């Protein structure tokens, strides 16, 4: 922990050479923050100050430095980090304004942030406690044994017709949200998708939403199709329908389109 003061004066464009924590290890630390609140708490505790005594100006500068550092280490920064940076900058600017004696505690521009930090820290500590509870297949193991032989007639009665092909295509049709689809060259355009949806609706009146994109288009395909659908709905060219009991929704062309 002591060495970390070194980090505060680093050149924003590169990691200082006297930094004796290896670059990779440092990157790992930065990546291990679960979000902007986690990073902020880290910065506060690092200074060994109480949350209630935050010096917003100082913390803001450090926070922004860390974000810059993440950027230079090419860590993908969630927009939430930037939102927090803006919040801090806003509080900092408010703090710089002259205060009046009669201002009470409620007016402290930091109070909202402090409340959120306290609430978050409570759960952060609790989650560390839960992570340390004994867990199945990590700290303890369940016991079981293979089933005895069941007679054939008994067994056949309980396996219904299973459509394996349907199960398989169902798995395949699911977009893989966990894969990072780095589609470098394939830039999907909403405009293009709008055109294609209209073309398709000429042949068929109604289509399930998931058929509007292809598996290999990944998340981007889903997003572009969604944007295109919303655009068309806004222009009143299509209707978006969802049955109450279903996760699927459908794109239906409005009559004017066909008639």
């Amino acid at each position, binding site marked *: 922990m002591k060495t970390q003061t070194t980090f505060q004066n680093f050149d924003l464009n590169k990691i200082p050479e006297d930094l004796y924590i290896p670059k990779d290890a440092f990157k790992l630390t930065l990546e*291990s923050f*679960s*979000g*902007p*609140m*986690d990073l902020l708490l880290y910065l506060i505790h690092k200074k060994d100050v*109480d*949350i*209630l*005594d935050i*010096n917003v100006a100082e913390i803001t500068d450090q926070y922004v430095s860390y974000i810059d550092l993440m950027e230079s280490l090419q860590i993908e920064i*969630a927009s*939430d980090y930037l939102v*927090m940076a803006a919040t801090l900058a806003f509080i900092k600017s408010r703090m710089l304004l002259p205060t009046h004696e009669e201002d009470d*505690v409620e007016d*402290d521009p*930091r109070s909202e942030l402090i409340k*959120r930090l*306290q*609430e*978050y*820290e*409570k*759960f*952060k*500590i*609790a*989650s*560390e*406690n*839960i*992570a340390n*509870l*004994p*867990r*199945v*297949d*990590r*700290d*303890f*193991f*369940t*016991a*079981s*044994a293979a*089933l*005895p032989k069941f007679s054939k007639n008994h067994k056949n009665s309980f396996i219904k017709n299973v459509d394996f092909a349907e199960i398989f295509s169902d798995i395949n049709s699911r977009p893989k*949200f*966990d894969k990072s689809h780095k589609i470098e060259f394939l830039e999907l355009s909403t405009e293009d998708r709008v055109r294609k949806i209209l073309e398709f609706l000429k042949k068929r009146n109604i289509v399930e939403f998931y058929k509007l994109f292809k598996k290999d288009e990944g998340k981007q395909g889903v997003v572009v199709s969604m944007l295109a659908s919303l655009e068309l709905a806004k222009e009143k060219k299509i209707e978006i329908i969802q049955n109450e009991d279903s996760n699927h929704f459908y794109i239906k062309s409005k009559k004017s389109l066909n008639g």
Partner: protein
Amino acid sequence: MDNLINCVEAILLSAGRPIKISEIRELIRLMDQQAELADIKKAIIDLDKRFTDSTLQIVEVASGYRLQIKNEYSRLLLPMWQDNSSKTSKALMETLTIIAYKQPITRGEIESIRGVSVSTQIIRNLTERNWIKVSGYKDVPGRPALYKTTKEFLDDFQLKSIEDLPEITDSKSITDLELNFG
């Protein structure tokens, strides 16, 4: 029936999951036999005694009684099961924790506590592990799903009920100090 202890053992061994006393009674009834809940409970205790010199033990968790290997053998068994399925990220654990203590809760509410968006992957991962489930939809615009933890979550963390979760405390630094704005 004199064989009750063995019946309980066979049921617990074949299930590989926690079993309720009432489930055991029902299986025995289907054999045209009778057993009172109290008898079954006693058989469970006797069975656990029989395991004294073996590697087995009976543990009660949220969904019932389960056979486990005694903890002293965990180190021996770990290499067999070491895989990614037991690994969890900090973000996943935070999300799970907030759901556990604040259930039922929407994704948006979790996000506002964590200050970061909760990825679909985390929700899917928690759902797939059967640690959380949708318990309903909040009556606000958009009708967002409300999440709560499951019995299986308690089982996997060897807990009997949600009250057994570690108590949630305000961090020392927060409670001990007066509001002191400089």
